[in-house]
C-alpha cells in the first residue's frame, strides 16, 4: 500500500511539472504569434487625415488670398504715391518754367527799354532841344522806370521827343499799347495791369479815402454835409478821354451828416432816404478834356446823370483827376445844383431861417486801378 501511494505522489508531481512546462511552452509560442493592441472604442467621428490635409490646404489658400489682397492694396498705395510725387514734381517743374519764362520776359523788356533809350538818344542827337514850346520834352532820368514801362505814359517824364507833332499842346502816347510781358516783384508774378495812364482800365473807389458832400447857405450860417459812405467804379483811359468814361458813384444818403443831429434828421426826411437810400452819379463821358500826360492830370466836364431823392437830372460836372504818389486817382470837382430840380423843398423855419435852394455839391474821391477794363 505504501508503494502505490508514493507512486501516485510522484505521478502527481510529474503531472504538475508537465503541466507547468506545457504552459510555459505554450505561452512562449503564443507570445510570438499574438500582438496586443490597446485602443479606444472606435468612433464614427474619427478625424480623417485627408480632411485635415484639405483643411490645411484651405487655410493656406485663404492666407494666400489675404496676402494677395494686401499686396494689391499696397501696390495701389504705392502707385498713388508715385502719381502724387509725379504731380508734385510736375508742378515744381511747371513753376520753375514759369519763373524762367518771367525772367526771359523781363530780359526782353529790359532789352526793349535799352533799345528805346538808344532810339531816344539818337533822336536827341538829330533834333536838338530848342525851347518848351517846341513840343520836345527832355527826359528826367530820376523818374525813368528801369523796367522799361517807364517809357509809357505812367512815367510821363521819360523821354518824349515829338518833333513830328503838329500840336505841341496835345499829349502824345509815348509807347504803343502793345502786349506787355509779365512783371514781377520779389518773385511774385504780377499782372501787366495796374495803373496805366493811357490804357483803358477799371478803377474802384476807395470809400475810406473818399468824401462826398455839399455846401449849403442859410440865413443863419453856412454848413457842410458830407460822408465817406461811398462806393463805385468806373472805366476810363485817362490819357485818352475821347475813349469814354463809364461808371457809377453811389452815396448812402442816410450817412450824410452836417454835425447837427436835428438838421440831419430833417435832411433825411427831405431826401426821403427810406424810399431812396442812395444818391447816384452815372458818368457817361468826359467832355472838353485837357490832358497833361506829364503831370498825369485830366481836367474836363463829367457828363452824366445825377439822381437824388428818386429824381434824375442830366448834369455836367467839372472835375479834375490827378494821380497821387501811390498811383491812386484823386478826383475832385464841384457842381451847383438846385434842390427844387430834384423835388426837394429847401428847409424853412417859420420864414425866418431859410436854406438857399442852390447848393454846391462836391466830390473828393480816391480810386485805385484794379486792372484792365474788359470791355471798351
Amino acid at each position: 500500500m505504501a508503494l502505490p501511494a508514493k507512486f501516485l505522489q510522484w505521478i502527481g508531481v510529474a503531472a504538475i511539472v508537465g503541466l507547468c512546462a506545457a504552459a510555459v511552452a505554450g505561452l512562449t509560442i503564443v507570445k510570438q504569434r499574438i500582438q496586443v493592441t490597446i485602443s479606444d472604442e472606435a468612433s464614427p467621428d474619427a478625424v480623417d487625415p485627408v480632411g485635415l490635409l484639405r483643411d490645411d490646404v484651405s487655410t493656406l489658400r485663404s492666407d494666400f488670398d489675404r496676402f494677395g489682397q494686401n499686396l494689391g492694396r499696397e501696390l495701389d498705395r504705392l502707385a498713388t504715391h508715385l502719381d502724387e510725387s509725379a504731380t508734385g514734381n510736375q508742378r515744381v517743374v511747371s513753376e520753375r518754367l514759369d519763373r524762367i519764362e518771367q525772367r526771359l520776359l523781363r530780359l526782353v523788356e529790359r532789352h526793349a527799354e535799352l533799345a528805346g533809350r538808344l532810339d531816344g538818344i539818337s533822336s536827341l542827337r538829330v533834333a536838338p532841344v530848342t525851347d518848351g514850346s517846341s513840343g520836345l520834352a527832355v527826359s528826367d532820368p530820376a523818374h525813368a522806370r528801369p523796367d522799361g514801362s517807364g517809357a509809357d505814359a505812367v512815367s510821363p517824364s521819360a523821354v518824349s521827343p515829338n518833333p513830328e507833332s503838329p500840336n505841341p499842346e496835345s499829349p502824345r502816347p509815348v509807347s504803343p499799347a502793345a502786349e506787355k510781358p509779365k512783371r514781377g516783384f520779389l518773385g511774385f508774378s504780377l499782372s501787366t495791369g495796374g495803373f496805366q495812364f493811357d490804357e483803358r482800365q477799371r478803377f474802384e473807389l476807395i470809400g475810406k479815402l473818399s468824401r462826398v458832400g455839399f455846401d449849403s447857405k442859410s440865413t443863419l450860417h453856412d454848413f457842410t454835409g458830407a460822408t465817406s459812405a461811398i462806393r463805385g467804379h468806373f472805366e476810363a483811359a485817362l490819357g485818352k478821354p475821347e475813349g469814354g468814361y463809364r461808371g457809377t458813384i453811389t452815396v448812402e444818403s442816410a450817412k450824410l451828416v452836417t454835425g447837427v443831429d436835428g438838421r440831419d434828421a430833417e435832411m433825411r426826411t427831405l431826401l426821403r432816404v427810406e424810399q431812396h437810400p442812395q444818391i447816384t452819379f452815372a458818368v457817361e463821358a468826359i467832355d472838353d478834356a485837357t490832358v497833361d500826360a506829364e503831370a498825369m492830370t485830366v481836367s474836363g466836364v463829367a457828363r452824366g446823370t445825377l439822381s437824388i431823392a428818386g429824381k434824375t437830372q442830366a448834369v455836367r460836372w467839372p472835375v479834375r483827376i490827378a494821380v497821387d504818389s501811390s498811383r491812386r486817382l484823386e478826383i475832385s470837382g464841384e457842381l451847383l445844383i438846385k434842390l427844387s430840380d430834384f423835388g426837394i423843398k429847401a428847409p424853412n423855419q417859420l420864414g425866418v431861417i431859410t436854406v438857399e435852394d442852390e447848393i454846391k455839391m462836391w466830390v473828393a474821391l480816391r480810386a485805385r486801378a484794379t486792372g484792365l477794363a474788359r470791355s471798351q
Partner: protein
Amino acid sequence: MSHSNVALLALVIVASCGCYPSNVIDTQDRQVDPGSAAEVFAALEWAAATTEDLPGTYASVLIEGDIVSLVVEARYIFHVGGTYSGAALVLSPANPERLEYQTLNGTWSLDGDQLVLDDERAVIRRSGDFLRLEHAEGRIVLERYELP
C-alpha cells in the same frame, strides 16, 4: 398864434440856431488825409540789415511805387538757415479783374546791401522792427510781428 408869439418863437429859434457855428469844409480840406505813413517811414533812421536781423515773420505796412496798384499786401517769413516763405495778395496776372494770393518758397541771403530772394534782388534796410525793400518796381516796408 398871435404875431408876438410867432416873433418870440422865431427869436428862440434864431437864438438856438445861432449856437451852431459854421462848419463849411474848406476846398483844400475836402480830400481825406490818406495818412502820413510814407513820411513817418521816411523819417526813420535806416541802417544796413544783417543776417541775424532777418529771421522772423513780417507783414507789409507800406507799399509804394509802380507796384502799388498791383500788390495789395505781402507777408514773409524768413527762417534761420536761409529759407523763406512769402505770400502776397496781388492783381491776378491771369485775370486782371480779380485779386489772388500767390505764395513763394525759396532761399534768402544777403549780398552787401541787397536781399537776394532766390534770384530776385532788392536793396534792404532795417530800422527797428521794420525792413524796407527797394526794388525796381517799387518799395515795400515790412513790419515784424509775432505769430499768435
